[in-house]
């Protein structure tokens, strides 16, 4: 059914379609309308779920964890400070290998106080063992939530998934969304039935303590599962396409990368604006391309290398900063490309912090700057720009 929904409504629709059974969440802008909509669904009887009205985000994730280990499909959502407040629970859930889906309406971290979009909140949780998928449209937000339930519960993955959507830019922007039929979703996504769960007939301890002899083994297999998730994310995306005729490329989403001298790497909704700019510059005869990184964790090193191997300059636009160094994506992409026979130069840019708009002119400026570097045969080690803090 075609509907006109914003990103948050699309997520709520997905959660209903996924038949989530327990939802625990605490309001925070710009996430709140997701769980308000879910509460509305429950109130009007169109969704059967228990909504636990917790007193904090930390409790939200603890409650989701408690429900999930009983063998229940759960959902939560948060943003920014709320995600930061959850931080302690994040590795607990991933370490216990509890599948669940959390939507993150990305927003900057205070101070200064902000309610607007950037990726600092989720990036700061990079190493908590959650899969992080960043979406470009409301449609992708809906579809990715459905995919995420399948990815998370895959027996070789068993890892929770964050579905990240830019605050306001996606969360509060309405557009046409194709909402799949319940029957079709049921065919794609079977009920969640883990191998074991809280059961007095077959008691388990969830989250045992482990000493130095054992802890690394659990972490080793957690890493194996995360690496395996790279294939599973692609498989699930292909399967999704077979069911719904929509696909997002799995881990990365390249756009005119094959012959581009300059490729811009972004995550999230900025990719849409960047596509317009790539089209415009292509019409001007410039060899530019775009690579949207969909999966930040697991990090798709192989796919990035394959897509960027012909680029002369790779421009990376981070909506985050690792203070004292540079944008996190820039660092990671440099590392991913290190050792290629012909290594593209990586130029890091930081932009769109705290909701600062990323306009077509901003992106065209990055492309032009990097095209100029290519023309100058500038293969110097220094970054072309690292952080025009106005943008």
């Amino acid at each position, binding site marked *: 059914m075609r509907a006109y929904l914003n990103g948050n409504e699309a997520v709520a629709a997905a959660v209903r379609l996924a038949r989530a059974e327990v939802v625990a969440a605490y309001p925070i802008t710009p996430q709140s309308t997701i769980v308000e909509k879910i509460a509305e669904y429950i109130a009007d009887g169109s969704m059967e779920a228990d909504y636990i009205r917790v007193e904090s985000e930390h409790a939200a994730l603890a409650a989701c964890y408690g429900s999930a*280990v009983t063998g229940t499909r759960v959902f939560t959502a948060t943003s920014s400070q709320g995600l930061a407040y959850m931080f302690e629970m994040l590795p607990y859930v991933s*370490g*216990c*290998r*509890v599948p669940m889906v959390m939507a993150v309406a990305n927003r900057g971290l205070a101070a200064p106080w902000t309610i607007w979009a950037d990726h600092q909140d989720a990036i700061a949780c990079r190493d908590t063992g959650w899969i992080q998928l960043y979406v470009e449209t409301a449609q992708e937000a809906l579809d990715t939530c459905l995919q995420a339930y399948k990815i998370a519960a895959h027996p*070789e993955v*068993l890892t929770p998934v964050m579905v990240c959507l830019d605050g306001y830019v996606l969360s509060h922007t309405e557009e046409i969304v194709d909402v799949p039929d319940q029957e079709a979703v049921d065919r794609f996504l079977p009920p969640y039935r883990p*191998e*074991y769960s809280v059961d007095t007939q*077959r*008691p*388990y*301890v*969830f*989250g*045992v303590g*482990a000493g130095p*002899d*054992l802890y690394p*083994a*659990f972490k*080793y*297999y*957690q890493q*194996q*599962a995360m690496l395996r998730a790279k294939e599973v994310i692609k498989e699930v995306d292909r399967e999704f396409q077979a069911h719904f005729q929509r696909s997002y490329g799995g881990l990365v989403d390249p756009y005119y990368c094959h012959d581009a001298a300059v490729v811009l790497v972004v995550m999230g909704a900025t990719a849409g604006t960047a596509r317009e700019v790539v089209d415009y510059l292509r019409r001007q005869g410039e060899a530019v391309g775009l690579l949207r990184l969909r999966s930040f964790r697991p990090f798709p090193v192989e796919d990035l290398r394959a897509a960027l191997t012909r680029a002369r300059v790779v421009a990376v636009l981070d909506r985050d900063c690792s203070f004292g160094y540079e944008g996190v994506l820039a660092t990671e992409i440099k590392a991913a490309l290190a050792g290629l026979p012909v290594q593209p130069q990586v130029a890091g840019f930081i932009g769109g912090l705290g909701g600062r708009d990323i306009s077509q002119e901003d992106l065209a400026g990055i492309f032009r700057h990097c095209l100029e570097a290519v023309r100058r045969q500038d293969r110097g080690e220094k970054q072309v720009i690292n952080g025009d803090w106005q943008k």
Partner: protein
Amino acid sequence: MLAEGDLRKGPNLATPCLSTTTGSWRLVRPVLDPGRCHNCLNCWLFCPEGCFTRGERIVSLNLDFCKGCGICVAECPRQALALVEEGSNDARLLER
């Protein structure tokens, strides 16, 4: 060590699972004088480790998990229990 299949699924394991009997921690052990026991069950009730078994007339002791804390001795109203040093007391025991 756990099997790979267990490790893959995370640190969630079937319980109970006891690799040691904590009775090995014990420096002293309680001994029961059956003649004095009136089956009041204080020892059974207050033993943190659940080492006592109720019987028809008297309790009996399983020392697998006994850490020798002495609570049973302290709570026995009829001095039917006493603590003796581990490994040195069989003779003294018999004397009683």
